[in-house]
Structure formats: structure tokens, C-alpha cells
């Protein structure tokens, strides 16, 4: 059974989310504070974490950072705040997706399923053994092994970052628009392009020798992104 950890300080919202998620077949566990959530995740890691941003004590942003430090569990922010500033900050802290309250349960479970498809075995495209390693200069991507190496050294990327990198690598040298990437990586028909921009930024920090002047993962103004040698 898929386990979901819900970190939400509002008792009623937490209870309602746990009930609804259990109805949808998830094994849901609640935590009222970030500290409690972090302890629970360390003790018994869930498959997904839902985080509210406004939490007493340790706030949601810090909670995301600490969760991200430990592993690559998909993190979804569920917040009533929808300022650009909050959205970008939460994504930069390491969140995989951002949903604004109120979220319909159908929408929430659809997002979780999309994240699940993003698991490393879910890479679409040519048969994995046909392209064991995709090389971009000193950058090597092994879609089937779920590994990224730079100059021979393994690079730690989250599942979403890995999926994004594979999608760009499969279409090496070709431009993918933000909407195409949103659809292929996050499963959105039409979504928030900041999701793509922030993830590309995070990916650059990990794979580019100089993230400010990217060589491999380049932006094409008004068109989208391209991975090149």
C-alpha cells in the first residue's frame, strides 16, 4: 500500500485529508508539526509527503529542505498561499509540485499518480537497454540505472529532476517547450511554468560546471529548454 505523510497543523484539514486519502486507497499518516513529520519520515519513510507552508515552529520551507537532505521522496506542497514568491521559494527548497488550497481530492490523487509515474523505472522512450548511457560531454545519464554522473562522479538528483533530465536527454539537441515538459514530466495538461523553470535551475546547480552560464541545459528564449553536448 502506498504511504502518504500529511504534515498539516490545522487539525480539521489534516483529519479530512487523511480520511479522503484513506478512501482513495492510500496509507495516510498525519503530523501536526514539521518536527513531528521529520521524525515520522526518518522512522518509517512514506512514499509521498504533503506539506503545508505555514507551520508552527519549523516552517514548511525548512521542513522541505530537511526532508530533501535525507532522501528523494516526492514532496508536494499543499498551501493556501499562492504568491509567486512562496511558490518559487518552496520549489527551490526542493518541493516537486505545488498545489493551492482548496485541492479537490481527485486532483490531489492525480498529482500523486503522476509523481509515481515519474519513478525511475517509469522512464518512457526507447527500450532502456538500447541506450544504456547518454553522454553529454562529461555528463553521463543512465536512464535504466537511474544514475547521473559528472566527470565520473555520481550526482544526487531527485526523481523529478531525473525524469526531467531524461526527457530532455531523449530529445537531445531539440527544444522542448515548458508546456511540453509540464505535460511529460508532471502530467499537467496546462500548468504553472514556474514549476519547470525552478526545476531546471536546481538541475543546473547539480550538472553544470558554471550554473550561471549553462553549457548543456540551455534556455531558448520564448521557446523552452534544450539539452546539448
Amino acid at each position, binding site marked *: 500500500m502506498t504511504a502518504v505523510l500529511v504534515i498539516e497543523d490545522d487539525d480539521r484539514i489534516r483529519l479530512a485529508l487523511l480520511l479522503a486519502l484513506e478512501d482513495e486507497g492510500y496509507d495516510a499518516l498525519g503530523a501536526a508539526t514539521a518536527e513531528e513529520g521529520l521524525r515520522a519520515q526518518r522512522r518509517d519513510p512514506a512514499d509521498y509527503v504533503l506539506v503545508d507552508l505555514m507551520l508552527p515552529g519549523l516552517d514548511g520551507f525548512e521542513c522541505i529542505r530537511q526532508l530533501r537532505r535525507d532522501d528523494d521522496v516526492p514532496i508536494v506542497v499543499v498551501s493556501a498561499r499562492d504568491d509567486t514568491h512562496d511558490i518559487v521559494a518552496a520549489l527551490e527548497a526542493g518541493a516537486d509540485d505545488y498545489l493551492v488550497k482548496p485541492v*479537490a481530492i481527485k486532483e490531489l490523487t492525480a498529482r500523486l499518480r503522476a509523481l509515481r509515474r515519474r519513478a525511475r523505472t517509469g522512464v518512457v522512450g526507447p527500450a532502456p537497454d538500447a541506450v544504456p548511457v547518454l553522454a553529454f560531454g562529461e555528463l553521463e545519464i543512465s536512464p535504466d540505472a537511474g544514475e547521473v554522473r559528472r566527470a565520473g562522479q555520481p550526482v544526487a538528483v531527485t526523481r523529478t529532476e531525473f525524469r526531467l533530465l531524461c526527457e530532455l536527454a531523449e530529445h537531445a539537441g531539440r527544444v522542448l517547450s515548458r508546456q511540453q515538459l509540464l505535460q511529460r514530466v508532471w502530467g499537467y495538461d496546462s500548468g504553472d511554468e514556474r514549476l519547470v523553470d525552478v526545476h531546471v535551475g536546481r538541475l543546473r546547480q547539480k550538472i553544470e560546471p558554471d550554473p550561471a552560464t549553462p553549457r548543456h541545459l540551455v534556455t531558448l528564449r520564448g521557446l523552452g529548454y534544450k539539452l546539448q553536448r
Partner: protein
Amino acid sequence: MRRLGLRTRVIATFAVGALLLAASMALVSYELTRRSLIDERERTALRAAYFDATVVRAGIDTDTPDVVEVLRSLDTGGGRRPVLHLNGEWYGRNADPGITTAIPADLRRVVASGEPAVQRVLVDGQPALVVGVPLSPTATFFEVNSLRELEQTFDVLALALTTVAVLVAGSGAALGWYATRHGLRPLTAVADAAEKIAAGDFTARLDPATDPDLTRLSSSFNQMVDRLAHRIERDRRFAADVSHELRSPLQTLAAAASVLARRREHQDERTAIAAGLVADEIDRFQRLVNDLIDLARSDQPAHRAPVDVVALARDACHTLDLPASLVRLAPDVPVTWQVERRRVAQILANLLDNAVTYGGGPTTLLLSRDGGVGVIEVEDDGPGVPVEDREVIFDRFVRGRAAHTRGAGDGTGLGLALVAQHAAAHTGHVTVTDRPGGGARFRVTLPESLT
């Protein structure tokens, strides 16, 4: 005609004022100088003529006078030419016929009657002064005084006065320019501050210490900005608080409603109906809150980026379970427009939703252009919109008459208001007309979205 600017008007007034003043001063000085010089010249000429006349009278008072020799003996310099009329004959120093014709007949008659006289005439086009002195019943003496030098003096004087007048007028204009520049400098500061504030910088203030005369303006301006900034901040915080406070309980309701909906088959009929009503209203309430928050925010200008509007239109159809074949792109219209994706997506969704709810479903979604203006048109073959409603339907919380009669009102009443506001954010607007053959046609213009 466009009204001239304050600065231009002040400079022109200064220049014209200075010119009028300088010109009248110059004219008066010129006239006074001219008159006194001419009077002086006349007196001098008269005195000299009397003196010469005495010499000539003595010279011709003999039996056989050598008139020419007498005239030649006169010390007249270059400026005076003596002429004698004796016994019906004209005598001059040289054979000079022109000079006698220059002496007007009126003058001759007056002098011949025994009266000395003075008259200004033109000799060979040159100004001159003729003085006539009677010597005896048969002899009259005339002297023609050239006024050329005097006229030259007047010319120089006129030139000097004109130059001064022009210079004074120029100085007046310069003074006006300087005065307005200094006078308007505080207004420039006000304009700069107002521009900054309009651009969203609420830290802009005027320095009340710059000019004591403008302290009142500065302090009331600053007070106004303080209040405005305070009010905007309060509104912003209120909107943020309201959205947060409404969204949080809605999350609980949405999750709880989905739990109820899953258990519909275990509920008795009355409970199921009540649970269905709760779920529907929560859904509507959610949309209402989202529309309200959007409406509160959408008065800012659009953040334009290249957007594939055809794909966006097809997505909008897909979301409302409408066929993508509704979407038509006019010939020679590119698929990529410079617009804000979120806003245009909402325009499309709300227009289609409106056509579904009130127009019996959309018949066409046409994307076309009018020069650089992107045009979105959604048509339906429903009852159309009565002429008197064509403005008000874009106001907030107005719903179609059909909805009232049917009592179904599923919309939030904000859909078309949001369309209008999103169009305005792109400096465009939305109108509704009759569709040829019945139904309504909604037309949204998005200027500067095509280049």
C-alpha cells in the same frame, strides 16, 4: 489645435512683452531725436541763409553785378547750394538746371510775396531743405541744404534702436525660459515622484525643504502617497488574509465532501441528496473564491510571453468536454501569440463555459487577427444577448436572464467580468454582438499580441 505648454506660453509672453516695451521705447526715442535734430538743422540752415542773403544783397547792389562771382564767394561748404532768382533769371554757381526745378512753386510764390520760408523736398531722390529769403521785389535768394548726412544719422540710429529692441526681446524670452525652468522644477519633481508611484514604488516622496513656497504642495502630496500606500497595503493584506482564511476551511470541506461522495451507496436517499447538495455547493464556493481572488488581482498589466493559443484553445475545449474541432485558426494567423497564458486560458474557458451555460453550447471558437491585434471569437446559437444587457453582462455578479428563469445559476457570476478584466490587462476589450443566423458572438481583442 493642441494647447501650448505652460513653459512655451510663459516664454512667448515674456518675449512679446519685452519686444513691445523695447519697440515703443525705440520708436519714442527715434521720433524725439529725429524731431530735435531736424529742428536744429532747420534753425542752422535758416541762420546761414540769412547771413548768405545779406552777402548776396550787398554783392548785387551795383550796376553791373557779377552774380555768379557773388554766389561763388559765399562760404557754404559742401552741404549748401545757393541759387538766386533775379529779374526772372535763375543764377547758380554752376550750370545746374536740376536745382531750380527742385524748388517748389509754392515756396517761390511765398518768398516772392516777401516772406522767408522753409520747405523739405527731394532733390534727385535725396532729402533736402530749401530756405528762401526775399532780397528785393525782383530778387529772391534760395539755399538748398542737403539732409543726406542727417538721414544717414537717422538710419544708424534706427538700426541701433532696432537691434536693441530685438536683443531685449531675446533677453525677455531667455528670462522667461529661465523663470519657467526654475518655476517648474518643483513640478518636475512632483511628476517624477508621481511616475514612480504609478509604477508601484511607494517609497517615492517629495522633499518639503526644497522650496518654502511649495511646502504645502509637498506635504499634502506626501500625505496623499502615505495614505495611498497604507490603503493599498491594507487591501493587499486583506485580500491575502481573506483568501487564506477562506481557502483553509474549503480544503476541509472539499476533502470531507469527497469522503461523503464515496459512500453514496451506503446512505439513505435523503442523506445522499443532502450530501450531493453540499458537494455541489462546495464546488461552486471554491470556484467563487478562486474567481474573486483572481478578480482582486487581475488589475495589473499582463505578463506577456509567447503562447501557442491554438493548443491553449484545444485544451480549454478538452477540459469542458467539447470537441477540439470547434477551434478554427483564420488564414495567415500564427499559432503563437504574445499574451499571458493564465489570463488567455481563463478567457477561453469562461467564454466557452458561458456559451455552454447560456447559449446551448459553442458553435465556433475562431482565432484571427486585426493587424497586430489578436482576436478571439466564441459563437453560440442560443437566444443571444438582448441589446440592453450587452454592457451589464460584463459587470460582476450578473448572470444571464435564462439562469434566473430556470433558477439553475451554476456560475459564479464573475466569469465574464474576469474575461473583461483579462482583456483590459492586455489593453484590449470584450464585446458581444448577434451572430448572423441567431445566437451570440463574444469578441475579445488582445492588442500587441501579434507582430
